[in-house]
């Protein structure tokens, strides 16, 4: 399979993730969509890594995984805190700040 195929899949996943962020209202799911976007980037990185035959891409992908994990952790932390504060877990309800 040529690299192009992987890239095509990667782009598809990225777009799904981006679309998901736009349509989902539950912050938990939005975090999942962000994961999708980062994973799409990972796929692209690894595909390029293969293409160039260097490890940079793979290392980058590992780092991205770390970052993804960190973002998730913090994101979940915020959600938990909101839940405890009895705030609605729905991004469309968070409109205190506007204008």
């Amino acid at each position, binding site marked *: 399979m040529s690299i192009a195929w992987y890239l095509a899949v990667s782009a598809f996943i990225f777009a799904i993730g981006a679309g998901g*962020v*736009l*349509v989902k209202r539950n912050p938990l799911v939005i975090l999942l969509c962000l994961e999708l976007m980062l994973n799409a980037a990972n796929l692209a990185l690894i595909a390029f890594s293969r293409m160039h035959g260097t490890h940079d891409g793979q290392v980058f992908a590992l780092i991205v995984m770390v970052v993804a994990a960190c973002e998730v952790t913090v994101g979940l932390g915020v959600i938990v805190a909101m839940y405890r504060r009895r705030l609605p877990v729905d*991004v*469309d309800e*968070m*409109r205190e*700040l506007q204008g």
Partner: protein
Amino acid sequence: MTSVKTFAWLTLLFPLAGCIVNALGYRVLRGKAPGYVGTAVLFASFVSAVLMLFALQDLAAEERHVRAVAWDYMAVGGFDGQLALLIDPLSAFMTVTITGVSSLIHLYSVAYMGGDRGYARFFSYLNFFVFSMLLLILAGNFIFLIVGWAFVGAASYLLISFWFRRTTATAAGIKAFVINVLGDVGLVLGTFFIFRGTGTLDYLGAFEKAGEISGGDVTAGCILLLVGAFAKSAQIPLHTWLADAMEGPTPVSALIHAATMVTAGVYLIARMWPLFEESESAAAVGAIIGCLTLFVSATIGLVVTDLKRIIAYSTMSQIGYMVMAVSSGAYVAGIFHFYTHAFFKALLFMAAGSVIAAMAGVQDIDRMRGFRGAMPFTFGCFVIGGLSLAGVPPFAGFVSKDEVLAYVADRGDWHVALVVVGYITAFITALYTFRLIFRVFFGEPSPEARELEEGHLHHADVPRNPMTGEEEDTDVGFPGPEHHIAEREGPMKGAMGVLAFFAVFAGFLQIPNVTDALDTFMEPTFEGSRFHEELHPSDALTFGGLAIGAAFSLAGIAVAYLIWMRRPEIAAQVRERFRPLHTLFVNKWYADEALDRLFVRPAAWFGRFAQQTFERVVVNGLFVGGPVGLVRAGSAAVRSRQSGFLRAYAALMVVGLTGVVLWLLIRA
């Protein structure tokens, strides 16, 4: 030479000193002190002027152009404006006449204005006026001509609205001022044309190079100078202010609006003769307008009923003669007429002032009657002035007016037509002058006259403005709480007596074929003038003219006698017969209305349009409201996007992302 300069400066500065002393000392100088100060400096100035004249005569004929320079005034960038005086026979003669007449009028005012609360102010203004007038006459270059020109305008304004709480007075003042500024503008523009051609502002320099100015420029320049002259001398179409100017105290009318300021136009044209001789057409304009004015204003004088306004219109008419003369090249004749006119017209005003005082401010001749017995001295003076004005031999006015007409006639061509009009007007002049005399002094005494005969001067219960009926403000009183008539006041009597003397005898200065003192004296000024050398009316013309003039004026008096003394009903009949003409005359040939339609209303409309429409719609709407509205709308749009919806934010981000990617992909 030095003494000429010294006396010139002194002549000029005496009145200024008087002005300043009176202005600053208004609290210190009590009683009539300001009047005496003002009069004293004027006499000093007169003496100095006479000495200047003599000193000038001591110089050789070709040296009688003395320039006295004080300092550089605006001498940069091609200009050579200096604070400089030019003393030559013309200016010296004018100076002497003006200081002389002014002194007398000051003297008259000392008494006449007695009791007015603005006494010191009055003399300060009056002195300032004389200073300005002398500056105008003595100026050595265009700049100070303009300065003096404007100063007399300002002084005139101040004196017209001297009783400044009368709205009629202030309105008349602003009218006079604005029209005079219009004249200033003409003068300045004319100066521009001339300066452009000659490169110098100095009289002598400019006159020397008069030939170098291009034809168009010199004509344009001279016509613009004429505009200045017309405004100041109340010539058509800029004459409307003069009648309204009669709102001022009577000495003011005598001084400014009869003897001195209004004749500045005549002086200007005479002074600028080298330029006018370069431009036939400009000179023609002057002559024709002068002729027009002398006729038109005489017709108006025939019908109006306000004592001072009748005299004012006669002034316009007489100045018309002068303007016609100097524009036609009869310089000396014009100046001569100015000289005689100064005496008899001042005298007439003074006498009128006396009458008005007796009437407690009323000026309407319909209400006057039979003052002859009550005020014999005033009556005498008035008759002398009237005869002189009417041109009855041998009074001064007779000699000078007929000299004017003879010289103009000598130009030939179409100038003859002017002369014809001049003679017809001489008849009208006699007519209205004696209309005045007969109606005011003869007949059954009016209540006021009767009161005076009983030794009691009439005072109104409630002083009212005769024009509007408005109650007068007694603080800035009209005409002051006290009234003064010549019969009871020495200074008034003295001043009028002297003037009466000159009104009779001043003409002897230059009697055709007898003396030509003035001609000789003026020679250095008009040296090189084409017309000055060429125009010498033949004896036939001269004496024929004199005869015709005498005949016309006597005829006028006779007709006046017929109409107003013998058969008063004729007046009504004539009025009925010539109703349209009468209406035209009474309405002053609709000049005020024309000016109003042409200038005042458009300007007012423009002002209103600017104030109410343009400022709101364009200045504030288009330039302020527009951008502000745009920014506000932008703000609303941007902030409505800031909805607080997280997903909307993300969406915008994605949109931005697609946009940026698209842009760069297109470039790829």
